[in-house]
């Protein structure tokens, strides 16, 4: 096969799996083979990606010359259908295909026995196809097509368990909220087509295109800035940046492997990918860059505080994802091209691992509520150790992967903007705290009954997230088909940082492909040992605090109880479990009520309020306007004549 055919096969391999499931396996009733088909398809894509990666590595300039095909002509705008592979693409391909493959294998165990088994794998194959199409697209229109397709797959997969109303609601919320962002994306596309006359990504970076974009202006702002802001709006919707982040925590209603693949490792990173891809344009719009950076920093901090108090393990992860995506945006906004993608890659591995670990835990306990977990360390050693490694990586403890990329982002921030740097640094502390809170609540202490206890507490059986485990009959490690992907993900979660060490910046060199080198002003920041030590210190401080509160329980429970008075203490004890008493008193009173409460209120009343408010307004308007339709034919006739009179009047007044 030629280089080009290999690249195309990356895209077509999972597509073939999707078509096979839809048109052969499902109609034939061979549902059981769907998983295998998807796994083979994705494995094929992974193989082709590896070969492509090696090809890119071998080519000087790290860009593969690929043909494109005429697609359509809109006025003067000629669009081509083509793939573009450079170093960034090849890295993204590896990340997407490898995580996808492991998640598909994991799903064999997780989804076993589900009635929607083949439907699930069909969606997953379609998602992987679309995500690869998005990464491979050489023009923005093509990218947009796949952008919407991944959104659609995400919609279908969030609402996968349709018997739960919450899932359907979450799916719709995700679809509509991200479409608000896509509004900006689409307008940016139209503006680019109209002003620059091309949508091919690399052509947009040429000097005269940039000059044309800077030259045109609308409402006193350059077209370039509008375009950048529009693209960022799209990116913010997909990557769950403030204030469009509201859909992601709800999206956890989907099956956990979906959360791991789509809502942690790949699709939500598409926004970061888009902004990064277009960074050579963004850099000419300082205002837009500032918006990207500050949105990223605010999102990172805000989401971290919300992660502190969530009791659903998947929601903790979701907030964590939002927060980490904020980091990446922060890096991009400050010009940290390599730093952002380095972190994207590392995050994909350790966050996917954390999600799969959470899925593994719930598979056994039958719940996602950490208040009913605890003490799982001995029963689930593989899960525990892998999740621990991922947590350390997320917290930024050297020499795990998260440390290296986070440190690069912090260094970029320190060099560019002290304000944003301190926001990011505060996030480091919070991150370490919430991730260890999660770890300690889940794996240490006593087991608190799992799904059965939760059902008892809530008084009904069908509560909770996608808990379809075994209700705590006997705690056990997940089957090897699920445990194996955990172990395999643990390797990159620990090691992927090594590709860009301060002394050997291999990724740095690799990602600066010819086009990027020519069009992007590189912001290279030197490694700062002092900063590294400081951030590690902050992370350790966060871990220590979490340990004090949830681990060793420095404040003894009974002394606390007597201080509070016996009866309410006992009630709380029985209701929430011991660990949560600490939280209520310590974390709750201080952090929750003040900081998190503030953010939560902002989130609920301002952001969610705006989204819901817009919906309410539209609905109210609709309710009013539909009353105009009285069923009286004469009212309709009246409208026609009033229309004539008004149009005549307007026409006369206009002239």
């Amino acid at each position: 096969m030629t280089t080009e055919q290999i690249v195309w096969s990356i895209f077509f391999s999972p597509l073939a799996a999707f078509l096979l499931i839809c048109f052969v396996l499902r109609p034939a009733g061979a549902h059981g083979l769907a998983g295998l088909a998807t796994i083979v398809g994705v494995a094929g894509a992974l193989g082709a990606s590896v070969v492509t990666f090696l090809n890119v590595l071998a080519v000087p300039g790290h860009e593969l010359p690929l043909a494109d095909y005429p697609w359509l002509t809109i006025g003067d705008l000629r669009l081509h259908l083509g793939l573009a592979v450079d170093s960034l693409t090849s890295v993204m391909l590896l990340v997407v295909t490898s995580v996808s493959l492991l998640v598909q294998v994991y799903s064999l165990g997780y989804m076993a026995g589900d009635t929607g088994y083949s439907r699930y794998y069909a969606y997953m194959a379609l998602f992987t196809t679309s995500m690869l199409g998005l990464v491979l697209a050489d023009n923005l229109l093509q990218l947009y097509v796949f952008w919407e397709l991944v959104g659609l797959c995400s919609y279908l997969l969030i609402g996968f368990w349709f018997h739960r109303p919450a899932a359907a609601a979450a799916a719709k919320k995700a679809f509509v909220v991200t479409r608000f962002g896509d509004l900006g994306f689409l307008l940016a596309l139209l503006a680019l087509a109209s002003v620059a006359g091309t949508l091919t990504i690399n052509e947009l970076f040429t000097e005269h295109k940039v000059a044309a974009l800077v030259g045109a202006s609308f409402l006193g702002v350059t077209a370039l800035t509008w375009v950048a802001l529009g693209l960022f709006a799209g990116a913010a919707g997909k990557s769950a940046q403030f204030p469009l982040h509201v859909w992601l925590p709800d999206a956890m209603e989907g099956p956990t492997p979906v959360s791991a693949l789509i809502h942690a490792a790949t699709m939500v990173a598409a926004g970061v990918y888009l902004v990064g891809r277009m960074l050579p344009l963004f850099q000419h719009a300082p205002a837009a860059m500032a918006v990207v950076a500050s949105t990223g920093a605010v999102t990172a901090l805000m989401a971290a505080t919300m992660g502190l108090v969530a009791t659903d393990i998947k929601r903790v992860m979701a907030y964590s994802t939002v927060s980490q995506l904020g980091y990446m945006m922060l890096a991009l906004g400050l010009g940290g091209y390599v730093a952002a993608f380095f972190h994207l890659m590392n995050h994909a591995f350790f966050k996917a691992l954390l999600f799969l670990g959470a899925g593994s835990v719930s598979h056994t306990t039958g719940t996602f509520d950490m208040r009913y977990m605890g003490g799982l360390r001995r029963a689930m050693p593989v899960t525990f150790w892998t999740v621990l490694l991922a947590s350390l990586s997320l917290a930024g403890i050297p020499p795990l992967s998260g440390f290296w990329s986070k440190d690069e982002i912090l260094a970029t921030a320190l060099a560019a903007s002290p304000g944003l740097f301190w926001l990011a640094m505060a996030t480091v502390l919070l991150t370490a705290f919430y991730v260890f809170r999660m770890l300690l609540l889940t794996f240490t202490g006593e087991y608190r009954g799992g799904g059965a206890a939760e059902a008892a507490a809530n008084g009904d059986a069908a509560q909770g997230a996608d808990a379809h485990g075994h209700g705590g009959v006997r705690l056990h490690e997940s089957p090897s088909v699920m445990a194996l992907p955990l172990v395999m993900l643990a390797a990159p979660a620990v090691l992927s940082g090594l590709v860009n060490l301060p002394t050997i910046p291999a990724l740095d060199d690799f990602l600066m492909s010819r086009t990027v080198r020519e069009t992007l002003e590189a912001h290279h920041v030197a490694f700062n040992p002092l900063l590294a030590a400081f951030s590690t210190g902050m992370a350790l401080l966060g871990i220590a605090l979490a340990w004090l509160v949830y681990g060793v329980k420095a404040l003894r429970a009974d002394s606390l109880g007597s201080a509070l008075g016996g009866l309410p203490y006992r009630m709380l004890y029985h209701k929430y479990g011991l660990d949560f008493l600490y939280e209520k008193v310590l974390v709750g009173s201080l952090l929750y009520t003040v900081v998190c409460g503030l953010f939560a209120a902002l989130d609920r009343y301002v952001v969610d309020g705006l989204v819901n408010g817009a919906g309410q307004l539209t609905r109210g308007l609709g309710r009013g306007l539909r009353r105009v339709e009285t069923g009286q034919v004469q009212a309709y006739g009246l409208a026609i004549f009033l229309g004539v009179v008004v149009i005549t009047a307007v026409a006369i007044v206009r002239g």
Partner: protein
Amino acid sequence: MELYLIFPELVLLLCALLVIFSDLLGARKEALAGLAVLGLLIAARLAMELVGPDKGGVAFAGAIVVDDFALIFKFLFLVSTLLVVLASVEYVERFEGVAGEYYAVLLLACVGMMLMASAQEFITLYLSLELTGISLYTLTGLLRDARSSEAGIKFLLLGAVSSAVLLYGIAVLFGLTGTTSLPQMAPAVASGFQENRLPLLLATALLMAGLGFKLATVPFQMWVPDVYEGAPTPVTAFLSVASKSAGFVVVLRVFHTALGRDPLAADWAAIFAGLSLASMTLGNVVAIQQGNIKRMMGYSSIAQAGYLLVGLAVVPQSGVSGVLFFLVSYTVTNLGAFIAIIALSDKLNSDRISDYAGVWQRAPFLASGLALCLLSLTGVPPTAGFFAKLFIFNVAVQQNLLWLVVAGVLNSVVSAYFYVGVIREMFLGAPVDRTPVAVAAPVALALFLAVAGTFILGVFPGPAMSVASAAAGSLVP
């Protein structure tokens, strides 16, 4: 004789009479549908012969013109009628023994629309419009139950009133120019603009109202939800695509041929921009509130008319090609949606969106087809609807109508609420009963054709776009 220019129409007329006679002779319903399909295919084949720059021409003392612009619409009408005939094969049971007449009137309506596409003289235009109108009133009331008759009488009364308005507009233009021929009118209109601005604007407003009724744009749209809900579902499908396209072909030809020169053109373009904004906003906002799928599709069609009018807010040729491509993709998409709705509501015996819950498990093909068409109406790639919007919005951006484009894009976000609402109900809702829904082969074929069209136009819109541009060139050089 220039008779060959109207061979397609003649074949359909003949076919309609044949269908009636075969019905009288006791032919089976399926055979009648087959006959109609055959007639439509022959007509399409004959129309194909007329495609090309030097094939068509003007005929019958300037009454009609056959150009690429007219032909693209004729094909649209033929395809719409064909798909509606196929989709009706089960539904005709409800017409109590007048299936043959139903097909015949459908064919005659198609003849009327094809003549509308060709008419370039106001008397012919008016008569073909009324031929279409009377056929459609008949079809709407054909079920003769309370709702169907109510829809029929509402449609007829408002239709008659709006043709009176249209006629008044024509009369004014006739008085100003002394002719009813569109091409002959143009120079007189252009030269008389300064002194006759007032009556010209009045005539424009009257024409807009009279034809706006067919387009279903605000404020002439109020019949739409009621008639869509009450009419037999295949007729609703026909109304939503063919009748709307027929309105657009007339509007495009009248405004571009007779009134197409500045500064009058700038005036009507500005008014159309306003109507466009009002239509898409009202259509989308009220559609959210609807629980009946046919009614919802009615509001949706008002909104789509709003997007289409963006192309009329743009005077140059690009606006016309935008409208043409949009109509092509809207026709296949909306028909696809309606074919699925016809099949589903016939079997579910309900038009309530809530009764579509979990339909995906009972009729995966129908539900997937409907979902794809609804996504296309929302404007999600890779479907026809996405490129239709992109194309028409791009045209508007070129003409600095940015405000209208922003409104249009915002509106398509709003529209996601109700289109996706139906999809959610079908895919993510819990079904009440799980018995599979059977689909008759012709209905399945019709749906397949429409869905395939929607998808192909969404992946390779290039050829259709070139055809649209070429056809637009034959109207606006």
